[in-house]
């Protein structure tokens, strides 16, 4: 039994397939419209995901952090030990890490680099060490950002001098953690004792589980220090990046919708093209459909045959379009995120499925009128041609 004979068990599909094969050029052009529509809708959707991923990865780990520093109405030039204790007493599931900061010029082998200096005890909670170790309690060693180390030709174990003291480099840290405090500039992290001449802490970094927890903590601290008893005073400046992420993702959602809207318009144009093609081909085949009706083919069967034709067009165009969109998506992810295979993740790959489903849906939708018209034509009129 040949493939054609097997297909013949699905007469609607068989007839539709043969009918599409009769005018290949027209079929190809109609399908091309769908291909373009699917590529537009799917690749724009994926572009939105890629842009969002890039933006989120640039924000990095900052989104679950809350930063506290002295407010303009504070009596002190920084955050006091008492205030740190007060902050800690308000936290349940987060760690508060006080820091002192300064800046200096580090020199080694005749080269100089301007870096910000952070004095901190719990360094391992704040920094990702790419090489070496960040000890639980930083007491003697130092951490230095990769870029600065490279610039100065420093390696693990080399000494660095700050304020007359020498510190051995215990670990290298990733300095590209986005636009946080001191971002972009090189960083030197030393034990807090190295900055003992500064009485108060410059900032306290609180690391929460996630962005939502961080913004809760920020609100709570703000309320506690800046509202209770002292109206509209800013004793401590509390800032978190969670709301930044919220704004970015809400902007991204809007962008995504706009992109999908543009893609949707092209698919609507494509389905109008399908409507036109189906209408033309049913008008051309009017006599033939009349013969079908005369020999006893039911109206529903004619309807199904023509709808299947439209669905096949949509499926064909949708498949080719989804493949093309996957290629476009992989390219975009390669450029924006640096990982082409990320296009296959469900968050972006689902736009391929949406595009394909929309293509089939739109094609069937635009096949309904021509199919209905052909099926309900009077056989006598149709036979007359």
């Amino acid at each position, binding site marked *: 039994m040949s493939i054609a004979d097997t297909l013949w068990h699905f007469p609607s599909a068989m007839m539709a397939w*043969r009918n599409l094969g009769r005018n290949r050029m027209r079929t190809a052009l109609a399908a091309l419209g769908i291909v373009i529509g699917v590529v537009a809708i799917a690749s724009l959707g994926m572009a939105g995901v890629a842009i969002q991923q890039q933006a989120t990865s640039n924000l990095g780990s900052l989104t679950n952090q809350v930063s506290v520093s002295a407010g303009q109405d504070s009596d002190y030039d920084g955050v006091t030990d008492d205030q740190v204790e007060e902050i800690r007493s308000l936290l349940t599931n987060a760690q508060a890490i006080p820091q002192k900061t300064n800046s200096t010029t580090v020199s080694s082998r005749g080269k100089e680099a301007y870096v910000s200096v952070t004095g901190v005890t719990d360094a391992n909670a704040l920094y990702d060490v790419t090489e070496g170790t960040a000890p639980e309690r930083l007491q003697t060693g130092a951490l230095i950002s990769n870029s600065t180390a490279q610039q100065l030709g420093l390696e693990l174990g080399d000494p660095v001098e700050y304020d007359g003291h020498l510190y051995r480099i215990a670990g290298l840290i990733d300095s590209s953690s986005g636009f946080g405090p001191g971002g972009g500039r090189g960083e030197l992290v030393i034990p807090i004792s190295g900055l003992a001449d500064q009485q108060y802490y410059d900032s306290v970094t609180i690391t929460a589980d996630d962005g939502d927890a961080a913004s809760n903590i920020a609100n709570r601290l703000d309320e506690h220090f800046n509202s209770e008893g002292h109206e509209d005073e800013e004793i401590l400046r509390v800032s978190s990046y969670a709301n930044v992420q919220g704004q970015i993702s809400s902007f991204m959602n809007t962008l995504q919708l706009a992109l999908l809207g543009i893609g949707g318009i092209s698919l609507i144009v494509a389905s109008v093209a399908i409507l036109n093609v189906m209408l033309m081909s049913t008008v051309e085949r009017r006599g033939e459909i009349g013969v079908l009706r*005369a*020999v*006893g*083919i*039911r109206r529903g069967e004619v309807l199904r045959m023509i709808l299947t034709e439209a669905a096949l067009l949509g499926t064909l165009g949708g498949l080719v379009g989804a493949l093309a969109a996957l290629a476009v998506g992989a390219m975009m992810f390669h450029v924006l995120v640096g990982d082409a295979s990320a296009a296959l993740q469900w968050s972006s790959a689902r736009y391929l499925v949406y595009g394909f489903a929309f293509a089939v849906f739109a094609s069937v939708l635009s096949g309904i009128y021509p199919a209905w018209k052909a099926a309900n034509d009077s056989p006598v009129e149709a036979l007359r041609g």
Partner: protein
Amino acid sequence: MSVIELHDVVKRYESGAQTVTALKGVDFHADRGEMVTIIGPSGSGKSTMLNMIGLLDTPTAGTVLLDDRDVTDFTEDELTEERRTNLGFVFQDFHLLPMLTAVENVELPSVWDTSVDRRDRAIDLLKRVGLGDRLDHTPDELSGGQQQRVAIARSLINGPDILLADEPTGNLDQDTGQTILEEVTRLKQEENIAVVAVTHDEQMLEYTDRTVRIVDGVIQQ
């Protein structure tokens, strides 16, 4: 016994402000094993009459009986069902589907009935009209006479009681027309069916059992 009967059938068409009466009270019947030919000048209403007999159209007044059943007020879907099971059609210009092979064209009327094993019957019918070696040819690979034979095989696939032929030899040369008519006559006897034909072709009258003449929508006695 008559397998199809028209009683006092009237058909009026409204075209714009005008009313055209194509059939003005027509009586007609055809029996099994009989070939009836309807002749008449163009515009006489013979095509309209064939449409009534073929259940493609419904009369304005009068009665249509199929196998003694009154089918006058049948819905379009019921008429489709009757056409499928009881009627076969052969047209002047064959009307085969160009993208289907001969055997597929023959199967076409029954192809949506998945319960029927139609392939064997289709091949058998094509053999009987002398096309056993042309099963997988498409219509454009067949001559006019061969195409009309495929159409005849198609009209018989569901085992009808009546075969309706609208100028079956109209597009064929004299010799081919003759073999087609011989074919129809033979099948008419083999299958014991009524054949109702509309024609201009004088040679067809040699094969017909009875001739009905219609002029201006009225049967001439």
